[in-house]
């Protein structure tokens, strides 16, 4: 504005000062309620750090899809209560899918609560599943039991379930590297839901689905649910049973290691870490049979050649493979909602 004035009236150029003064007065009038000391601007660090993190940690080795995945995490909010979720059609749909799957799995039957029994509570947990390129794959709702309301001796007894030792994992990796074995990875979908319960457990009706039945009706659980104290144990027991039926021998050195020696002299090794499975060995046929058998017994996701196990491994397409922890660092940072600075 000031410039315009000057350009159009070159003769009045000495008036421009006056004009500016008036203008600023008008501004002050508008903002009378501001504090006297005006903010001068946010302070910034003038000096660059001497040792920026980018010198040491870089995303360069990640494929571009993985980079976008890392940056896209945590961008969509998830509901924290049922009432919030019921407003959104996507979440409602996800809950319907979960209930349907549980019914199909024959997880519970509806009964009236016997006197003297206490039902376990349950709640919904919502998560968003991402594809490798960072776009949203699906909205997932999971019904979890409030295991903390269970009492020892009443509705649970033993809870211990073994997981693969880090040492065993390294032994298997070392052997696979030395013998040039192929490492296959599988993931069991809804692993805990496969476990069969021995104890008698009653659970409240899932929130959002408790309208249609009479008061006092509860679910009597037949299969394990996420959140129950004995779920991991029930799942591992079931898995062991299936593996022994397939003719695999449980190793005494580590109970999560299953081994089968075929007639041809080949060996197949299976290592299970809760729902993550590694299969290796020099018997290709047996491996194919095994993956088919697992698929008929459980719902299996075949992840192909080993990439990550326990969020740890970073493969390099060579005969040798390294076992790095860069991913751990990144995942640690992610979990805290903190990305490495300068990235």
């Amino acid at each position: 504005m000031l410039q315009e004035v000057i350009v159009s009236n070159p003769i009045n150029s000495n008036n421009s000062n006056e004009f500016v003064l008036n203008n600023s007065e008008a501004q002050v009038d508008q903002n009378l309620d501001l504090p006297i000391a005006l903010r001068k601007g946010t302070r910034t660090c003038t000096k660059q750090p001497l040792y920026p993190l980018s010198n040491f940690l870089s995303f360069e080795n990640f494929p571009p899809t993985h980079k976008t995945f890392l940056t896209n995490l945590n961008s969509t909010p998830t509901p924290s209560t049922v009432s919030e979720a019921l407003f959104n059609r996507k979440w409602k749909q996800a809950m319907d899918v979960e209930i349907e799957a549980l019914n199909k799995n024959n997880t519970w039957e509806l009964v009236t609560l016997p006197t003297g029994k206490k039902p376990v509570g349950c709640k919904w947990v919502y998560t968003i599943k991402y594809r490798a390129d960072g776009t949203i794959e699906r909205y997932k709702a999971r019904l979890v039991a409030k295991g903390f309301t269970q009492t020892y001796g009443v509705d649970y007894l033993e809870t211990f379930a073994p997981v693969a030792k880090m040492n065993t994992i390294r032994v298997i990796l070392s052997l696979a590297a030395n013998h040039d074995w192929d490492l296959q990875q599988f993931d069991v979908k809804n692993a805990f839901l496969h476990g069969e319960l021995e104890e008698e457990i009653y659970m409240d009706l899932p929130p959002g689905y408790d309208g249609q039945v009479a008061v006092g009706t509860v679910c009597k659980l037949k299969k394990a649910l996420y959140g129950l104290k004995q779920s991991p144990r029930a799942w591992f027991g079931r898995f062991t049973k299936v593996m022994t039926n397939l003719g695999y021998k449980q190793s005494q050195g580590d109970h999560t290691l299953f081994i089968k020696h075929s007639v041809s002299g080949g060996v197949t090794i299976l290592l299970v870490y809760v729902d993550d499975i590694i299969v290796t060995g020099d018997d290709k046929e047996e491996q194919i049979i095994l993956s088919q058998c697992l698929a008929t017994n459980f719902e299996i996701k075949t992840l192909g050649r080993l990439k990550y196990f326990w969020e740890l491994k970073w493969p390099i397409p060579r005969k040798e493979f390294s076992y790095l922890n860069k991913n751990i660092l990144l995942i640690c940072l992610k979990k805290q909602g903190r990305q490495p600075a300068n990235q």
Partner: protein
Amino acid sequence: MLKETGKTACKPISTPVDPNIKLESAEEDNAVNKEMYQRLVGRLIYLSHTRPDIAFAVSLVSQFMHQPREAHLQAALRIVQYLKGTPGRGILFKRNKSVALEAYTNVDYAGSVVDRRSTTGYYTFLGGNLVTWKSKKQSVVARSSAEAEFRAMAQGICELLWLKIILEDLKLRWDKPMKLYCDNKSAISIAHNPVQHDGTKHIEVDRHFIKEKLDSGLICTPYVSTQSQLADILTKGLNAINFERIISKLGMENT
């Protein structure tokens, strides 16, 4: 982790432990935020699953979880600083076409200033690849370095036996004796010597255990000089040159 400790712009350090500092309980020092300290050390413990290079440093700082002081926090932050310089370091599993079992054991005699207990450290290698390791303060006070070494050897043997069980399950034969490298000559000679020494009465169980395994030809105990002792890194803070030398021998590589 770097950001949480406010160390994003720190200068990286070449070793995780200062070789000249012995951590003590430091009662008179300023107390630090316990929760923060425990969270930090917890993360480091998780990280040490894949990083034998920080195993000793982490075992040191985790001894003071119950009452962290300023000096301990500084030690923990030093590990973070070290990690910053080497974020991509990891074990590389190479193809050596063997299933040789080897172990290196070492102790730091009376290394703890607090209670003068010794620190055990061992590495086991399977087919030339590092598979297991441990750095742990012993549960009892040892009266001589040989005695401390003995305990470490017994533990190393246990680990080797476990590996052997796994391999036998897989029907992988390894008939030669497993090598247990040890840098204490007196411990080796006591292990071989069947004569009952008065001075080793109190460690009889470990002694007989090692003797039995030696006699059955399961293990052998070659001597290694302190120079080529790889397990040094698990029992004491080393200077940068030695540290790097051992790290490269362990098969740890940067990417």
